[in-house]
């Protein structure tokens, strides 16, 4: 029954659930309507720091249609959590403005909203501190930063090397707080039956969510089922469990009814994480030929009182360029602010804005072409660890990008080209992203009708994961993809890692391949006979992933931007953006292009548009809707192109693939900022580059 098929990996298979989505049949978390459903609307703190003294829940439960009003005074008790952000309604402390302090459950959404508005809460407000400053007296060194990296690293004597360097760049860059704004805001439908809990949730990882939620409610993980077949984007904001899902489960438990809780766009600016603002000082020492002798990159960031989230901002600097003497460092301050979390390429995105801007400043200082400067500083092995790269094609990306972009013959003189009433300039930056792989399980099944079903609790957050896993399974089973059905997004399926760290394809793909191989073996053993009840095999990649040999595994890329800046107004617009990436084997060119282009678009947005404005008086992010928080329109990026260099890297995983979900955003902001400098002669070191920073 085995048939040989042409390889599916590498082909442009259309999104397998595409028709379901465009016809509205794909069901998202919010679109579940269990019997007896009630609606939950949270109440948010209106002080940035203090205590909740009282909540007049009795008054609102008397309102017609209101089922329950819950605050810490009457909330079901949760087990202690490592992440204090998840101890929802468990204490009277207010740690940031917008924190959930109560929830109202009612028969209709309208009724719940009105009751939530009317619920009177008394606070004892305390003075708050919401301002990130590099010289904040409470700055400290976290033990580790996100993804488990050490906070600080040092090699040689960077201070002496900087002091001795013939050419020095010493600059401070700032990136603002930025908020993920996936099209689908977070939503949960929570249903209790006995001591079992079912969550229809918009999440990047059903297995991880179950592992977090179950202990909070004092249950074994098996008692929790999380269902999330379709997710309208996440970018990291749906990666870890957040207050809304806990609140939904807690409200449903208290009310004794299934409960639906949809986070509003406005609430997302307080309760679903954001990218920390950063202040970064970069010092580069070089000889007059542009060869780096020292690199120092220090980052200052914030987190909330509730949870230490330390973005790994300077970690890409540990990977990028050769230099004997070097240091990276992270410092964190805990403020009365919402808790930051993952946003597409945490660490790499802000860190590479600073490093790649500084590299451009060095190119200018040395009078060397910025493409050439990067090539000159290409390391032979990973600079800090000394490990060999499993593959590294940054130079090829730079050369190929330069060729496609038309970089050759670029006049480096700033502010020297106009087109109409526009100053025009070009810029380049490099990008990088680590290759992660996490243990996952999967099952593969064959039925007598010769159809295959692959099951894995992976997440398709709009990336096309379901589609590429279909391709991977088809090749492993040596059949055409139309005979394979992949089921994802449900804890009833074999547990899998979450969609994060651009690791989905590598992690889930490995498990799927191993499960399919096991099934084929079993089939072989049976001479190809499929029993009436079907045949199933499973795989668990924990061992394989744990035992992988030591290599420095990273994807690389190069971004080129052309920018026009209006001479009169300072309005900067990206005219052209081109990226070339080396990210192992590309499993599906259509879904891959979407990831690269989407990432680059988000990087362009980081460069010119996005900024969450902290209101110092009130302590919240002020511009909390999409009319005020700008993300790009089609007119903001008329021409964006992504290309890639196929790599044949045997040290990765059975697919030979590196992650592609995040690298597109990395470096883009620097390429745009460098182009703005080339266009205008103005070096903008604090994002976003809005017209008030350029108008003269």
């Amino acid at each position, binding site marked *: 029954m085995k048939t040989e098929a042409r390889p599916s990996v590498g082909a442009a298979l259309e999104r397998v659930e595409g028709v379901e989505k465009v016809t509205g049949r794909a069901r998202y978390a919010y679109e579940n309507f269990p019997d007896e459903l009630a609606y939950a609307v949270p109440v948010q703190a209106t002080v940035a720091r203090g205590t909740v003294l009282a909540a007049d829940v009795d008054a609102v439960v008397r309102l017609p249609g209101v089922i329950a009003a819950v605050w810490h005074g009457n909330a079901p008790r949760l087990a202690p959590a490592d992440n204090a952000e998840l101890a929802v309604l468990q204490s009277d402390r207010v740690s940031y403005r917008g924190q959930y302090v109560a929830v109202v459950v009612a028969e209709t959404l309208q009724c719940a909203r*009105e009751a939530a508005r009317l619920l009177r809460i008394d606070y004892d407000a305390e003075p708050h501190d919401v301002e990130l400053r590099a010289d904040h007296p409470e700055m400290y060194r976290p033990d580790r930063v996100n993804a488990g990296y050490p906070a600080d690293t040092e090699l040689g004597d960077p201070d002496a090397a900087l002091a001795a360097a013939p050419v020095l760049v010493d600059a401070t860059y700032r990136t603002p707080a930025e908020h993920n704004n996936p099209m689908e805001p977070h939503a949960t439908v929570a249903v209790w039956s006995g001591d079992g809990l079912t969550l229809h949730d918009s999440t990047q990882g059903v297995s991880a969510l179950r592992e977090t939620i179950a202990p909070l409610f004092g249950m074994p993980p098996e008692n929790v089922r999380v269902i999330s077949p379709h997710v309208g984007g996440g970018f990291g904001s749906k990666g870890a469990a957040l207050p809304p899902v806990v609140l939904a489960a807690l409200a449903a438990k208290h009310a004794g009814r299934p409960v639906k809780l949809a986070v509003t766009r406005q609430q997302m600016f307080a309760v679903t994480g954001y990218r920390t603002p950063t202040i970064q000082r970069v010092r580069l020492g070089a000889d007059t030929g542009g060869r780096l002798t020292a690199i120092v990159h220090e980052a200052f960031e914030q987190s909330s009182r509730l949870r230490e989230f330390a973005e790994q901002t300077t970690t890409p600097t540990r990977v990028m360029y050769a230099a004997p003497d070097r240091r990276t460092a992270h410092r964190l301050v805990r403020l009365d602010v919402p808790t930051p979390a993952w946003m597409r390429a945490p660490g790499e995105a802000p860190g590479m804005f600073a490093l790649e801007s500084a590299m451009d400043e060095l190119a200018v200082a040395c009078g060397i072409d910025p493409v050439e400067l990067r090539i000159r500083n290409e390391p032979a092995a990973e600079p800090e660890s000394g490990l060999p790269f499993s593959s590294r094609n940054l130079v090829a990306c730079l050369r190929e990008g330069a060729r496609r972009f038309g970089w050759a013959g670029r006049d480096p003189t700033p502010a020297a080209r106009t087109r109409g009433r526009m100053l025009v300039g070009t810029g380049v930056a490099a990008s990088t992203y680590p290759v992660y792989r996490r243990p996952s399980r999967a099952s593969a099944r064959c039925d007598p009708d010769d159809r295959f079903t692959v099951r894995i609790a992976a997440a398709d957050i709009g990336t096309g994961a379901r589609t590429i896993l279909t391709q991977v399974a088809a090749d492993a089973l040596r059949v055409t993809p139309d005979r394979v059905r992949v089921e994802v997004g449900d804890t009833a399926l074999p547990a899998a890692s979450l969609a994060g760290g651009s690791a989905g394809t590598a992690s889930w793909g490995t498990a799927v391949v191993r499960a399919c191989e096991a099934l084929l073996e079993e089939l072989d053993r049976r001479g190809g006979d499929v029993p009436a009840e079907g045949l199933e095999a499973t795989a668990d990649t924990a061992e394989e992933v744990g035992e992988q040999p030591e290599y420095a595994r990273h994807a690389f890329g190069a971004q080129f931007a052309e920018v026009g800046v209006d001479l009169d107004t300072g309005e900067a617009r990206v005219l052209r953006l081109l990226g070339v990436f080396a990210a192992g084997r590309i499993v599906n060119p259509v879904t891959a292009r979407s990831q690269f282009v989407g990432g680059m678009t988000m990087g362009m947005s980081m460069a010119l548009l996005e900024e969450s404005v902290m209101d110092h008086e009130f302590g919240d992010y002020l511009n909390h809707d999409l009319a005020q928080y700008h993300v790009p329109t089609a*007119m903001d990026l008329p021409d964006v192109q992504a290309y890639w260099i196929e790599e044949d890297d045997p040290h990765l995983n059975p697919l030979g693939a590196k992650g592609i979900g995040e690298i597109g955003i990395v470096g883009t902001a620097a390429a745009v900022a460098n182009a703005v400098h080339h266009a205008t002669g103005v070096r903008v070191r604090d994002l976003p580059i809005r017209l008030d920073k350029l108008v003269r």
Partner: protein
Amino acid sequence: MRPFTYERPADVRSAVAAAAGRPDAAYLGGGTNLVDLMRLGVATPRTLVDVTRISSRAIEETGGGLLIGAGVRNGDLAADPLVRRAQPLLARAVLEGASGQIRNMATVAGNLLQRTRCPYFQDVTKPCNKRLPGSGCPARTGDHRNLAILGHSEHCVATHPSDMAVALAALDALVHVEGPGGARTVPMPGLHRLPGDEPDRDTVLAPGELITAVEVPHLPFAARSRYRKVRDRASFAFAVVSVAAALDVAGGVVRDCRIALGGVAHAPWRAEAAEAALRGAAATPEEFARAADAELARSSPLPRNAFKAPLLRNVLVRTLTDLAEPAGFAESEPVETP
């Protein structure tokens, strides 16, 4: 959500009667602003009087200009051949506002009466003199990057967000109003107030007054006009500043001109000082700069919007310079929807 009644009167007279004497009633146009503000709890009408079916959707040529029904959708207005020919400035300004979908819903009257986008005004958990008189103006010391540099008061520094209103202010439009006390016309600019010590009042309209039409008088030099909007995003963003200008030049001398500014004040700002400085002056960049400075002499920027002064000067000089060049103004014809 708060309960309200919804009424759909049969004609203008009964609409006015329905709203008369009820300060908690509001007329409903396309709802693109009012309904948003109701969701946010900023607007809390007890009665919505839907006027979309009784408001005229006609655009007619009168002897002296155009009469535009209050119910004309922004999208239809910008696309109307009469408007594009006779008042390209107006068509352009409307087209620069909001998005295609919103313009298809938004009405002329609703656009004129849309409320400020000041972030504090839109957040009921914070004080704001415009929303809650006497509660204070946090924008003054907080985030006022997008707010006023002209004509503001210690009580309010908000800006009026409409693009269309800036063009109408430049074009001396007349707003036709029907109220409990009868019909009247209100000249533009003049419909919108400066905040003074009553920032809760955006306009001079009395409670219950209904806008029925906008009359735009014929402007002989309308063809030499332009709307220039400066914004943070290429499309679908409110103006940081904007300029509506029309220029009548003969023999290198400015015979007449119209200039109104957006994004700088509580009302669309007719640049009277600049206009006065220009009439009879040479049509040169130097004179344009002098005129801009005359207007800006009246400005008092705040710390975070000080950039608006040089920005406005540049845009004004550029717009007038382009208009003064015969080749320049051809571009001001409305182009395709952004």
